[in-house]
């Protein structure tokens, strides 16, 4: 079944009093809490209500767990969707990986009744039964479609004029496109427009939709870093001040592993890496000291100075 992509106007109609169930994921709350801070602050200022639960497990990881057993992956995903179903709210994720897992699980189980039955059999001892059709949104989707770039531009207090940014969408925000159905898989616009909405410039570069390489970190470090290098090279040549991501895996790959790539290939990038909500918070006037920038591996001072 092919669904048409939601347009901005359509979603704006239903944005009134939207209340989401926050799916924090694994990596963000434990290793990258600064991403969580920024996301929470941004949602708060933009008046997106969130509900929380401690009952979620790992989404689970669409690369490792799915590679081991698709059925385990679907069942764990369905368990999380069951929780959202019980609470009765749409899910908001902070991570591309969680977004793909939950959205694809919801999609697959809603389309294939046989599969749903199989998964529900596994959930039976857990006293859970999934009904299908849970709506799952990424924070970027909420910002882009529910709030809209115009509204964001209207609300910012400190425009990021002059800041040149490399938008890094991450694969699973848009692919597979017939499931994710949010933005174009080859030439997406949402993040670029969200960046421009803050007054910054999103610069074009080569191979924008290339994988960050993070999925290979647990399998083959060498390949993973080589892929990161291809990205960092293309980003550096495009002449930007920093990278903006939407996913903790991309964030880790470019922030924590940037130094590793630099050492291994004898290169110098010096590209600070931001999670989009961090930039949004800065533009909305949040005090940088509240955002935990000291937790970034690549120091962000040069960018903070530029936008002061």
């Amino acid at each position, binding site marked *: 079944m092919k669904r048409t992509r939601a347009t901005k106007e359509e979603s704006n109609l239903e944005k009134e009093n939207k209340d989401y169930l926050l799916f924090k994921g694994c990596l963000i709350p*434990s290793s990258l*809490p600064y991403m969580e*801070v920024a996301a929470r602050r941004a949602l708060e200022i933009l008046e997106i209500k969130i509900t929380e639960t401690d009952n979620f497990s*790992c989404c689970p990881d669409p690369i490792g767990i799915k590679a081991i057993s698709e059925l385990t992956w679907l069942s764990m995903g369905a368990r999380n969707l069951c929780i959202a179903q019980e609470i009765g709210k749409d899910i908001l994720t902070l991570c591309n990986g969680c977004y793909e897992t939950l959205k694809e699980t919801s999609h697959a189980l809603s389309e294939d009744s046989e599969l749903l039955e199989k998964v529900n059999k596994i959930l039976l001892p857990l006293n859970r039964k999934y009904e299908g059709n849970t709506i799952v949104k990424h924070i970027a989707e909420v910002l882009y479609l529910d709030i809209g770039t115009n509204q964001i531009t209207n609300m910012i207090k400190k425009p990021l004029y002059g800041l040149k940014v490399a938008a890094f969408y991450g694969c699973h925000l848009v692919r*597979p496109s017939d499931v994710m159905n949010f933005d174009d898989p080859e030439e997406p616009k949402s993040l670029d427009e969200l960046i421009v909405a803050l007054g910054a410039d999103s610069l074009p570069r080569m191979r924008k939709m290339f994988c960050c390489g993070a999925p290979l970190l647990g399998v083959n470090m060498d390949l993973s870093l080589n*892929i990161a290098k291809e990205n960092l090279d293309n980003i550096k040549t495009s002449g930007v001040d920093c990278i903006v991501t939407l996913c903790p895996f991309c964030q880790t790959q470019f922030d924590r592993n940037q130094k590793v790539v630099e050492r291994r290939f004898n290169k110098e990038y010096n590209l600070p890496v931001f999670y989009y909500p961090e930039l949004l918070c800065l533009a909305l006037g949040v005090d940088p000291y509240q955002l935990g920038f000291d937790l970034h591996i690549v120091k962000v001072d040069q960018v903070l100075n530029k936008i002061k």
Partner: protein
Amino acid sequence: MEIEKDLEKLIEEIGGEDFQKKVQVCYQCGTCVGGCPVAWVNENFNPRKIMLALSRGEIDEIINNDLLWFCCYCHTCLERCPQKIPVSEIIVKLKNIAAKVRGIPEGYVNELKMIAKTGRISSISSATERRREQLNLPKLVQTSVEKDIKRILKQTGTNLFLEKEIKK
């Protein structure tokens, strides 16, 4: 319970009846390779050749090659395939088959262990707690998620992989 060895049965169970048929329309154009991030950095990894071997029924050749695990599941191949073959999803199913026959990479064993233990892929250390506190983030409450997860792992047979690493 022994790990499942009967390959043909496995292929049907995991891949579905027409698993091989789905890729028979592949005309070997190489689009999947040209856009593949892994093929870009490792010239031995070649999704086109995986599709070729599958369409010819040489599945054991694929699953006995550790290169299979290098697919990073970015879906570029699936998006661009001119014959609309879901290459990345087919590779996932091949990995599922390979896992049952040969085991999984060490990194994934560790990930699975963590999931079985905590229900999550990363642990909450005291350092994490401290940092969260400094950032005024709510405390992470440990719930008994892992009980549910252990049940799921057991029911789907995935708990068997907890110790099963690919033997070189």
